[in-house]
């Protein structure tokens, strides 16, 4: 498979780019932030996303989706990254849709997937518990209760958790923290008794939630996949999320880079464009090279997820690690090369820096994925 977008994928990119840059440029995020908007994204725009078929992109056709792949999801994520568009696309259309279509029973799929495809259902994954992403360290307690289960514990960094109509919760039904066996995924109604959702506005003006589960009762039908065997499903879904976030970071990095290179051409000091100074030229060239190389790894990871899902872990680790470090470099160089202007709130560059920091942390930072790769390679 050629490591370039197909014609259809390029067309999808063009249509996503047209819509997002038109309806949700960075000023859109700024308005939502300044208005302290309770939702944090535009529900109207989400409706348009659904109408254009984006929200059901990974949903099988029989449930109203378009049954496309991770490369296509990545194409949309990159445009989201370019414009810093806040939307439930990642939480609902990428993660929840993947979890349900990969792990759901026929009944679970037909109950939830059509709502994801038509934009009426928002859903979030509740995984993280500690300060860093360590899915195998999940400790949330589950006790069997009659025909069902009771969940107790706290989840953090639940992306878009404040608006979710469905939570997919990772909890430990057996084994000890650190083990893959013994994890189970549950579908939980956030309105269930014992759930407390605290919206946490984040540094990037996007949304997450801290969710407390105080002996929340769920029935046996709410298990997604098999009891104790959710680790493999979770890891697969997380890998899709990692590929998607890596794509978003490529979008962030490339947009910051484009704006910065323009600034180097326009900004004049000492009687010439600052882009004439070799110190800046070489740094710009290095950043360009990092971005191009990272773009190749991200497309490789997404293609591998589509073509050879069970063997995509290494490619995903490489892509997420590279995307994290590249986006971090891009936003730092972006602020530095914009000088004092880069430090102002009025200028957009800071928004990219904040988003890059959040994306770096999401589903494992560069260090996490370097460690994963070392483990896979046995050293």
């Amino acid at each position, binding site marked *: 498979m*050629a490591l370039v977008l197909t014609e259809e994928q390029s067309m999808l990119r063009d249509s996503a780019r047209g819509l997002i840059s038109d309806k949700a440029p960075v000023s859109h995020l700024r308005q939502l932030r300044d208005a302290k908007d309770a939702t944090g994204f535009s529900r109207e725009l989400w409706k348009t996303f659904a109408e254009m078929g984006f929200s059901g992109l990974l949903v099988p056709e029989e449930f109203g989706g378009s049954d496309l792949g991770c490369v296509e999801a990545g194409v949309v994520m990159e445009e989201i990254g370019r414009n810093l568009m806040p939307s439930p696309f990642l939480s609902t259309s990428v993660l929840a849709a993947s979890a349900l279509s990969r792990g759901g029973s026929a009944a679970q799929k037909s109950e939830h997937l059509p709502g994801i495809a038509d934009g009426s259902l928002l859903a979030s994954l509740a995984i993280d518990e500690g300060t860093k992403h360590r899915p195998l360290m999940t400790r949330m307690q589950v006790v069997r209760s009659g025909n069902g289960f009771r969940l107790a514990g706290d989840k953090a960094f639940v992306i878009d958790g404040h608006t979710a109509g469905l939570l997919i919760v990772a909890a430990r039904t057996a084994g000890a923290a650190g083990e893959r066996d013994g994890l189970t995924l549950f579908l939980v109604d956030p309105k269930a008794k014992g759930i407390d959702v605290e919206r946490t506005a984040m540094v990037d003006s996007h949304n997450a939630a801290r969710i407390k589960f105080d002996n929340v009762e769920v029935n046996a039908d709410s298990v997604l996949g098999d009891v104790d065997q959710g680790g493999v499903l979770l890891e697969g879904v997380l890998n899709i999320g990692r590929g998607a976030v890596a794509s978003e970071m490529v979008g962030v990095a490339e947009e910051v880079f484009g704006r910065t290179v323009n600034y180097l051409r326009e900004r004049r000091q000492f009687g010439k464009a600052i882009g*004439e100074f070799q110190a800046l030229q070489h740094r710009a060239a290095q950043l*360009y090279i990092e971005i191009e190389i990272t773009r190749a790894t991200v497309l*490789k990871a997404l293609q591998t997820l589509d073509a050879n899902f069970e063997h995509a872990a290494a490619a995903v680790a490489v892509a997420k690690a590279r995307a994290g470090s590249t986006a971090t470099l891009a936003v730092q160089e972006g602020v530095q090369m914009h000088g004092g202007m880069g430090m102002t709130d009025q200028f957009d560059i800071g928004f990219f820096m904040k988003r890059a920091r959040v994306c770096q942390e999401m589903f494992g930072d560069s260090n996490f*994925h370097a460690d994963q790769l*070392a483990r896979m390679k046995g050293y």
Partner: protein
Amino acid sequence: MSDLEQFRRETRLWLEANCPPEMRRPMTSEEDTFWGGRNTTFSSEPQRVWFERMRDKGWTVPHWPKEFGGGGLDPEQTKIVRQEMAALGARQPLTSFGISMLGPALLKYGTDAQKKEHLPRIAAGLIRWCQGYSEPNAGSDLASLQTRAESDGDDFIINGQKIWTSYANYADWIFCLVRTDPAAKKHDGISFILFDMASNGVSTKPILLISGRSPFCETFFDDVRVPKANVVGTINRGWDVAKYLLQHERAMISGMGERGVGRPLGQIAADSVGTDEHGRLEDPILRGQIAAFEIDEAALACAAERAVDLAKAGEGHPAFSSAMKYYGTELNKRRYEILMSAGGIDALEWESERSKGGARPRAWLRTKANSIEGGTSEVMLGIVAKRILDLPGA
């Protein structure tokens, strides 16, 4: 099964049947590389067998036309041959500047007669080439070169000196940049010319490097007579040919960063520094450096694959080889810093049999030239800034 899948299957079967087991092991010494040439010898029987089988199939240059000794394969098929060779761990049967540098330039700029004369001999490993580019006063500023070619009837008379000529002392022919119009602006008076290193007036002198080896020479031309018919491209337009060839040279050098040294770095390090009860390297910082390196190594391989696919789709940038050259060479230097660190005091031995004559430290020192030869890292970044990013005044 699609045609390409069928081709992949046949390729795999052929390679498995024809590549001797000895030629599937990682190269460990310089003798493992076969360069071809008039005075060549094979270092082993399997090396000869492997080379001859590949030559007869046209796969020393699978992508060249069959009439010039190539395999006549299209880019997709060529990629498959490379992938299947890599999967098997098969060595390159023939390493040659004729293949990696001169060939592409001849295919684009050569006359029919030049192609017919030189390409089949390159493909068959009969002639070993060297590159006469750099001079003592023309390094990064290559276009200021001063080696002169003066017209004398149908010939040029060449006088001057080249430096850093790789393996000039073993080469049969040279592709050389010479100044044919000293009055013109520096880029406009250069010609690209081919001649036999056995010509009267050519002499070479190896340069001892920090590795204790001499892969480069000084090369001297004292009234060397060369037919004008040996100019490739137009007289005084040699810079176009030179730049085109440099793109291929840079792609070749960047490939050094991609190529593993056989065993994975993590395992090499585990053997020398040891592991803890979880099987992790005892030195956690070295472990992190290796993981970060392997991420970038995998990333470079993806970028190389994508560069080929972009070029095929007509979307590649001709200066991207400079980006790859920069990244690949810096990466290769990192690889050897890690290897030296992992090797500890064992990697410091310079002469012992145990250390194969100091193979690792010598290779480590050799890599320091990677970011200098073929255009320094700084020159590469300047090219990216100017030609790709279009920054002002670059």
